[in-house]
C-alpha cells in the first residue's frame, strides 16, 4: 500500500513539475503568465499539517495537550502507545473516529477540512514522514507503514520499562501463607478484605467494629505509600495482613499491612499510565486483568508469574479497565473497548484458576438468528456494538449465578447507530445472570432499553437476602436504584436517588421506562438537555450494603448534560461514541455535586442524605462500627454516622481521594485504608468544568492507612 501510494505521489509531483515547466516555457513566447499570486497554493500533507496544528490548538489542545501529550481531561495522542493503537489503521478510520467523537463539546465550528488538517497534524507529530499528497476523506494507507524506522525507534519509551519482578521478596517472611480457598472466599475472615467489595455479594461491608461512632474522631495516620503515577481507581485487597494492590501500568505490589513495607513488585505490562480498578485472589495466586485484555496469575507469596491467558485481541481495540472475580473456583472477567464496528463482540469469559484455560464465553450482544437477535433493527452483526462489561460483577454461590451489568449500545444515540428508540439491543444496559458452570444466560433484565444519552447501567450488582427473599440491587448512571428478584430477574421496586428528567414514566409494576419525547426523537446535531449527566447519577464507585441496618449507602453525583448525536457511517472498522456534550449544574442542588444517599432496602425510601460541593471519588464502605467512609475530589476523606449521615471525622490527603476504601485487622487491631489517585473519565472531566474552583495536585497517587492510637 505504501509503495503504490508513493508511486502515485511522485507521478503527480512529476506532472506538476512538467506543467510548471510548460507554463514557464510558454511565457517566453505567448501571453504573459497569470501572476503567481493568483495560482491556488498547492495543498499537500505538510501544508495540511501546518493548518492542522492551528486547528488542533484551538479545538483539541485543552484536553489532549499542546504537544499531544495528554492531560487529565484527555488521553495522549502521540508516541509509542498511540502508534501501537492506531498504527495498523488508516487515516480514513482515524478521521471518521475523530469526526464522530471529538471534541466532546460539539463541532459546530469545525469544517471537514479542519478535521482532515487535524488528522495530518496528528500523523505528522507521530512521525509519518513519507506522505506527500494531501489527505482526503478516503485515504486508506496504513499509518505505521509511513513512519520511518528512525522515527519509530525514537517513539519507544527510554529507558525500556521493566518486565517481571522488580522487587523480589516473600510474604512468608512476614506471615505464614495459608491458601485462600473458595470456602474462605464465601465466608471471609472478618480481619480480611480478600476480594473487590470484600464478599461475593459485593457488600463493601466490614464486620469489624473496633473503630466506631464513639472513637472514629481519634483516627490517625499509621503509614502512607506512594504509588506509580497515572490513571488510577484502585481497590486493594488485604489477606492475612498482606496488602495486594494494582498500580497504573499493570504493576502489582505486595506490602506489609502493618508497616507499609514493600515485599514484592511485579510489572506485567504494558507499561503505560492506564487504569485498572481491581485484582482478585484465589488459593496462592493474585490474578490481574491487564489494560491490553490479558489475564495473568502471580504467585501471591513471591509475585512470580504463574500463567497468562489472552482475554481478547487488543489490536482490535479490546481492553480491560476492571479486573476479575473468582467464583465457583473460576476466574471470571468482563471486557471493554467494544464500540468499534468489527465482527467480534464483547463478552464475559471464565478461566480455569489453576492454569488460565478458557472455560466459556457469554457474548453480551445478541446476533442475528440468536435469541434477542431481532432487537437490533435488522442491523448487520458487524454494526452491533457496545454491551461492555467494564465493571466487575458479583456472585451467588447458592444459585451458581454471576451477576453483571452491561453497558449501553454504541454509538450513544439511536439515530447515530441507524436505529430507533424501539430497537432495544439485547443484552445491553441490562443485568445479566450467567450460570458459572455453563456460561449460559439464566435471565436478564434490561433496565434502560435503547439507551440514548450515554447513561449506562453497568455498575456493581449488590446481592441482598431479606428473610427467604433474594434480591439484586443496582444503580446506573440514571441514578435509579433498581431492586430485582435475583432468582428470576423479576422487577420488584425502584427509587430515584438524584433528580432525573430523562424518563416521563417508570412503570411501578414492570420497571419499564418511557423516555421524554424529545429524547426519543433526537436527530443528528440536535441538542437534548437532560439529567443526570454522563458521570451519573452514579458511576464506577461502588455502593455499600450495611446488613445491620438494612441500608444501601451510595456515592452519587449531581450534574446534567446537553447531548447532540453525530453522524456515524456504517463502515467496518468505524463506530465509536458519536455525541457532542456540554455539562452544567443540576437544578435544585445548590451546586452540590456530591451526594451520599442511604436507602432502606425494604421500603426503598431515602433515609438520609449528605450533600457537598465536591464530587465523590471513592466507593462507599460501611462497617459494624456503624460508620460509612467516603472520599472526594477536594482531597477529603470522611467518616459518616450510618444512622443519620453526620460527619464524625475527616482528614485531607495529598490529592483527590479516589478508589475503594477497605478495612482490615492485624493482630486484633482494625485499620482503614484508602487511596489518593488521579485520572478517570467522565467523573473527573465533568466536575472539572463545573466545580472549577476545586484544585488539587495533578500527581500524588498513594495509599494511606489509618488506625486508632494504641
Amino acid at each position, binding site marked *: 500500500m505504501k509503495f503504490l501510494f508513493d508511486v502515485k505521489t511522485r507521478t503527480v509531483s512529476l506532472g506538476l513539475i512538467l506543467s510548471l515547466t510548460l507554463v514557464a516555457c510558454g511565457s517566453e513566447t505567448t501571453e504573459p503568465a497569470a501572476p503567481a499570486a493568483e495560482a491556488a497554493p498547492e495543498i499537500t500533507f505538510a501544508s495540511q499539517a501546518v493548518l492542522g496544528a492551528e486547528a488542533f490548538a484551538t479545538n483539541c489542545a*485543552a484536553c489532549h495537550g499542546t504537544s499531544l501529550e495528554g492531560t487529565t481531561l484527555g488521553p495522549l495522542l502521540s508516541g509509542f502507545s498511540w502508534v501501537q493503537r492506531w498504527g495498523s489503521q488508516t487515516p480514513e478510520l482515524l478521521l471518521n473516529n475523530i469526526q464522530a467523537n471529538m*471534541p466532546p463539546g460539539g463541532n459546530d465550528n469545525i469544517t471537514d477540512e479542519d478535521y482532515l488538517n487535524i488528522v495530518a497534524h496528528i500523523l505528522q507529530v507521530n512521525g509519518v514522514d513519507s506522505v506527500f499528497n494531501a489527505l482526503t476523506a478516503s485515504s486508506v494507507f496504513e499509518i505505521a507503514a509511513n513512519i520511518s524506522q528512525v522515527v519509530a525507534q525514537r517513539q519507544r519509551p527510554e529507558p525500556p520499562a521493566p518486565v517481571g519482578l522488580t522487587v523480589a521478596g516473600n510474604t512468608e517472611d512476614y506471615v505464614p501463607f495459608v491458601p485462600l480457598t473458595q470456602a474462605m472466599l464465601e465466608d471471609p475472615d472478618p480481619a480480611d478484605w480478600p476480594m473487590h467489595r470484600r464478599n461475593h455479594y459485593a457488600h463493601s461491608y466490614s464486620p469489624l467494629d473496633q473503630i466506631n461512632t464513639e472513637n472514629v474522631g481519634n483516627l490517625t495516620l499509621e503509614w502512607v505509600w506512594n504509588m506509580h503515577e497515572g490513571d488510577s481507581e484502585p481497590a486493594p485487597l488485604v489477606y492475612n495482613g498482606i496488602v495486594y494492590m494494582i498500580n497504573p501500568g499493570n504493576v502489582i505490589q505486595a506490602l506489609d499491612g502493618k508497616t507499609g513495607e514493600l515485599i514484592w513488585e511485579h510489572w506485567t505490562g504494558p507499561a503505560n499510565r492506564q487504569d485498572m480498578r481491581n485484582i482478585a485472589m484465589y488459593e496462592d495466586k493474585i490474578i490481574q486483568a491487564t489494560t491490553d485484555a490479558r489475564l495473568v496469575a502471580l504467585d501471591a507469596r513471591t509475585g512470580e508469574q504463574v500463567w497468562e491467558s489472552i482475554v481478547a485481541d487488543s489490536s482490535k481495540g479490546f481492553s480491560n479497565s476492571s479486573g476479575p472475580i473468582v467464583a465457583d473456583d473460576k476466574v471470571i472477567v468482563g471486557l471493554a473497548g467494544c464500540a468499534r464496528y468489527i465482527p467480534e463482540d464483547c463478552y464475559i469469559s471464565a478461566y480455569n484458576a489453576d492454569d488460565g484455560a478458557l472455560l466459556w464465553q457469554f457474548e453480551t450482544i445478541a446476533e442475528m438468528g440468536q435469541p434477542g437477535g431481532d432487537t437490533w433493527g435488522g442491523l448487520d452483526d458487524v454494526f452491533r456494538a457496545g454491551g461492555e462489561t467494564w465493571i466487575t460483577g458479583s456472585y451467588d454461590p447458592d444459585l451458581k449465578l454471576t451477576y453483571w451489568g452491561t453497558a449501553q449500545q454504541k454509538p450513544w444515540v439511536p439515530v447515530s447507530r441507524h436505529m430507533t428508540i424501539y430497537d432495544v439491543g439485547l443484552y445491553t444496559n441490562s443485568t445479566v445472570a450467567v450460570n458459572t458452570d455453563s456460561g449460559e444466560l439464566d435471565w436478564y433484565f434490561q433496565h434502560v432499553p435503547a439507551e440514548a444519552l450515554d447513561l449506562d447501567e453497568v455498575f456493581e450488582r449488590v446481592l441482598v437476602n431479606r428473610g427467604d427473599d433474594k434480591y439484586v440491587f443496582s444503580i446506573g448512571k440514571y441514578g435509579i436504584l433498581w431492586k430485582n428478584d435475583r432468582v428470576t430477574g423479576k422487577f420488584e421496586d425502584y427509587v430515584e436517588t438524584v433528580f432525573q428528567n430523562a424518563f416521563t414514566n417508570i412503570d411501578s409494576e414492570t420497571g419499564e421506562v418511557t423516555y421524554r419525547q424529545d429524547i426519543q426523537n433526537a436527530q443528528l446535531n440536535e441538542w437534548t438537555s437532560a*439529567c443526570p449527566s454522563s458521570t451519573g447519577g452514579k458511576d464506577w464507585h461502588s455502593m455499600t450494603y450495611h446488613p445491620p441496618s438494612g441500608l444501601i449507602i451510595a456515592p452519587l453525583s449531581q450534574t446534567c448534560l446537553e447531548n447532540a448525536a453525530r453522524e456515524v457511517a456504517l463502515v467496518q472498522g468505524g463506530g465509536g461514541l458519536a455525541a457532542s456534550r456540554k*455539562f*452544567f*449544574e443540576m*437544578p*435544585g442542588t445548590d451546586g452540590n455535586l456530591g451526594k451520599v444517599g442511604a436507602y432502606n432496602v425494604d421500603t426503598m425510601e431515602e433515609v438520609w442524605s449528605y450533600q457537598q460541593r465536591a464530587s465523590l471519588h471513592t466507593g462507599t464502605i460501611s462497617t459494624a462500627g456503624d460508620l460509612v467512609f467516603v472520599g472526594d475530589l477536594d482531597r477529603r476523606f470522611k467518616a459518616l454516622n450510618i444512622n443519620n449521615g453526620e460527619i464524625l471525622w475527616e482528614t485531607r490527603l495529598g490529592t483527590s481521594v479516589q478508589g475503594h476504601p477497605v478495612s482490615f485487622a492485624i493482630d486484633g487491631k482494625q485499620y482503614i485504608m484508602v487511596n489518593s489517585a488521579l485520572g478517570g473519565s467522565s467523573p473527573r472531566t465533568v466536575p472539572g468544568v463545573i466545580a472549577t474552583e476545586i484544585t488539587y495536585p495533578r500527581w500524588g497517587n498513594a495509599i494511606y492507612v489509618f488506625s486508632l492510637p494504641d
Partner: protein
Amino acid sequence: MQLGRKSTLLFFIASLSLFNVSAQTQTETYRARLSPMPTTPQTVTEIIGEGEVILTLSGNTLTVDGNFTGMSSVATMGHIHNGPPAQPGPVAFSLEVSSATGGSISGELELTDEQVTALKNNEFYVQIHSQNNAPGELRGWIFLRSHFQN
C-alpha cells in the same frame, strides 16, 4: 394519619414559609442560584461567573432582586425563561441587569395565575446574557428558598 419524618419536616418548612404572611397577602420566597451555562473543557474559561437571585411572590406580583459576579464580559440582557428544570424554554419576562461583568439583576413582574402555577412547579429560570455569550452565560432554576434548606 401519622406523618412520617419526611412529611413532618416538609410541614415544618411550609409553616416557616408562611410565617412571613402579612395580614392581607401571603408571600413566598424563592431563590435561583446562578451558575455557568452548559460548558465543555474547551469553553470552561469563557462561560464563567456566579450569582444569586431572591424572588418574592406576593399575590401575583413577583419581585426579583439578585446579583452576579465574574462574567466573561458585560451583561447585555436578563430574562426569566419558562422551562422545567434542566429543559430550556422561551423568554417569559425581561429583567433589569447591570451592564457590567458583575452587578445586579432586578424586576417587578405581574404573573398570571398560570404563571404562578408554573413558578410553584419550578418551571421558570433566570438567565443572564453577555456580550461574549449571547445565548447566555449564567442560568439558574427558581425553587422555593426552603428547598435549599432541606
